[in-house]
């Protein structure tokens, strides 16, 4: 498999080899960066009693952001609705909100010509059971139903932040155990993605809407947040980010088209390999996650997002409107630079990159040149496991050499972790089946049901 993006000079914001058209006149990756806004409820219960208020709040939020987007003449607007657990467990509720949002978006397209689309992202509730049931049971049923209902109620794109493999990764992250993390990502996660995205692509093609993408948020972003709190080393979080790429790639292999999820900071890799447009977030989503990749995350985005913000009142307006305004101005800057020339777009991209890259390994692995080098290696491997193994190895190599050359600063406490990670990566078996057998023999095996990932067969081999 060769990369969709052949050279650094083609690796730009706003341009993707495989653009996506969706919703009402919205185009991603065709030259213009679009703001993607996401919003959520303030602190409150969701139940029968509060449901009318929940509906009112979503109506208020969507009206607020659409109105401001029109006033600021946004080049388009992607709206993401991430459901909250109660709305997935009771999919009729989720559907009601989808309808409210879609109605408003249609109105703004017709009355104000605001190009737009609605991405619906049911939250993955399968881990409400422990150990999780990934392919049956009440949670899966309700979630699957919500996908269909959303498609019927006005969703233009479907996404999910799926959690397959999280059962083992959560503990692994706490113990800084890269091997176990890779097992969760590359063995369990990748298998679940295959199952899930086959299903999702089916739902979308029936409804003629866009299967967008998934996010390794439960892995990469958990690591990022832990690193930011100084609980785990940043070099580890950086390696885990890159190691999450093959898992997220599975969605595109199964037919997803993008734009990827904003919180999938692995996005640049997905764009390089699969050519899909990507949604990214950075300083724009400080309302949701503090970050050390605030600028570099923007460098090659096609949609630019705030991740998620609550409907709380700020001095000027509600927080979602404030986020929307900031996104629109960021997009204006990118689109203005790009309107000059390709060289200008590259210049802005490179400033975004250089302003962060040297300060944190998590930023370093998002450098477009680093991305292309590692992506190329990933693309040559045949399976998610082998791809993940090489991704982790390349990531730590890139970090180690940049550090040696004085181009990347690694804090003194983290230096010993470089060697530790190199060792762990070197010890990963060359055979997937060997790795699985080995892990199934450890207490890790108690954390999940192999059958839910379709791996009994391998284990009983």
């Amino acid at each position, binding site marked *: 498999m060769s990369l969709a993006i052949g050279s650094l000079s083609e690796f730009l914001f706003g341009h993707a080899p495989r653009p996506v058209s969706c919703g009402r006149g919205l185009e991603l990756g065709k030259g213009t960066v679009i703001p993607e806004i996401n919003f*959520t*409820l*303030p*602190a*409150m*219960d*969701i139940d029968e009693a509060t449901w009318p208020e929940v509906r009112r709040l979503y109506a208020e939020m969507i009206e607020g952001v659409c109105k401001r987007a029109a006033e600021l003449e946004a080049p388009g607007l992607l709206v993401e609705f991430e459901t*909250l*657990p*109660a709305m997935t467990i009771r999919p009729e509720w989720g559907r009601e909100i989808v309808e409210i949002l879609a109605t408003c978006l249609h109105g703004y397209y017709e009355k104000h010509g605001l190009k737009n689309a609605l991405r619906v992202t049911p939250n993955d509730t399968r*881990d*409400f059971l*422990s150990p999780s049931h990934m392919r049956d049971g009440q949670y899966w049923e309700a979630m699957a139903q919500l996908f269909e209902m959303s498609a019927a109620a006005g969703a233009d794109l479907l996404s999910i932040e799926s959690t397959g493999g999280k059962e083992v990764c*959560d503990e692994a*992250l*706490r*113990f*800084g*155990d890269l091997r176990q993390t890779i097992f969760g990502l590359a063995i369990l996660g990748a298998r679940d993605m295959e199952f899930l995205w086959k299903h999702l692509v089916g739902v979308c093609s029936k409804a003629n809407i866009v299967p967008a993408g998934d996010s390794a948020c439960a892995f990469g972003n*958990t690591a990022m947040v*832990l690193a930011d*709190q*100084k*609980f*785990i*080393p940043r070099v580890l979080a950086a390696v885990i980010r890159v190691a999450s790429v093959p898992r997220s790639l599975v969605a595109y292999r199964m037919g997803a088209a993008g734009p990827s999820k904003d919180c999938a900071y692995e996005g640049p890799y997905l764009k390089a390999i699969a050519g899909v447009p990507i949604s990214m977030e950075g300083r724009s989503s400080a309302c949701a996650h503090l970050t050390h990749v605030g600028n570099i995350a923007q460098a090659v985005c096609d949609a630019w997002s705030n991740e998620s913000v*609550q409907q709380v009142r700020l001095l000027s307006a509600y927080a979602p409107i404030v986020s929307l305004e900031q996104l629109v101005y960021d997009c204006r800057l990118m689109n203005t630079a790009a309107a000059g020339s390709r060289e200008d777009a590259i210049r802005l991209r490179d400033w975004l990159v250089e302003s962060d890259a040297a300060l944190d390994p998590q930023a370093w692995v998002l450098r477009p040149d680093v991305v292309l080098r590692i992506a190329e290696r990933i693309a040559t491997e045949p399976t998610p496991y082998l791809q993940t193994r090489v991704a982790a190895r390349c990531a730590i190599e890139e970090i180690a050499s940049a550090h040696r050359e004085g181009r990347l600063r690694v804090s003194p*406490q983290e230096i010993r972790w470089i060697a530790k990670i190199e060792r762990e990566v070197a010890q990963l078996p060359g055979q997937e089946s060997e790795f699985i057998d080995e892990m199934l023999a450890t207490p890790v095996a108690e954390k999940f049901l192999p059958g839910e990932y379709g791996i009994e067969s391998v284990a009983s081999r």
Partner: protein
Amino acid sequence: MTDLKKLHQAILDGNAKASAEETAHALVAGVDPMTIIEGTMIPAMDEVGRLFECQDYFVPELLLSGRAMKAAMQLLRPLLAKSGAQPVGRVVIGTVKGDLHDIGKNLVASMLEGGGFDVTDLGTDVSPDRFVAAIGEKNADIVCLSALLTVTMPAMKTTIEALERAGVRNKVRVLIGGAPVTLQYAREIGADGYGENANAAVALARELGKGTLRP
């Protein structure tokens, strides 16, 4: 004494196997169990705590040292008098109803254990009733509630109300935390304390244990 230095190092390295081995050697050599604990293991864990405080150690290192300490204790515990060290306090902890986020909660639980508390972890998506039941069963002094979603924060209030209804509210101190939670919110729902992070949680639990409440 050379051997005990090795035990010290094994704990610092988070090497459970070596820690157990060195403890066994020391016992065979006739060293008094209390000497091993007070002379070596506790100083070693203090050192680990210090390294974590000054951000030289990360959580994985802290947890692995904890495991190494536990491995050694497993050999020593049967040899100690029953009247030995009491836990600093008994804690019941869980993520509230509707919420599955548990990484923060798990860290808090680990740190509390490391701080000498006897911790019962009820897991995630814990209903008010289960909290009430566990308090009775474990005779807990402190209840820790975690929530990461704005829409599950109200379950903290519901849980405290359930404690009241069950008549156990004044037997325990309620400590809450999680990213969206604030000190104001803790006051609002009548919790006894709010901890911003895992370190604060331990300090706070100790304080509450002494009967002193936060403002």
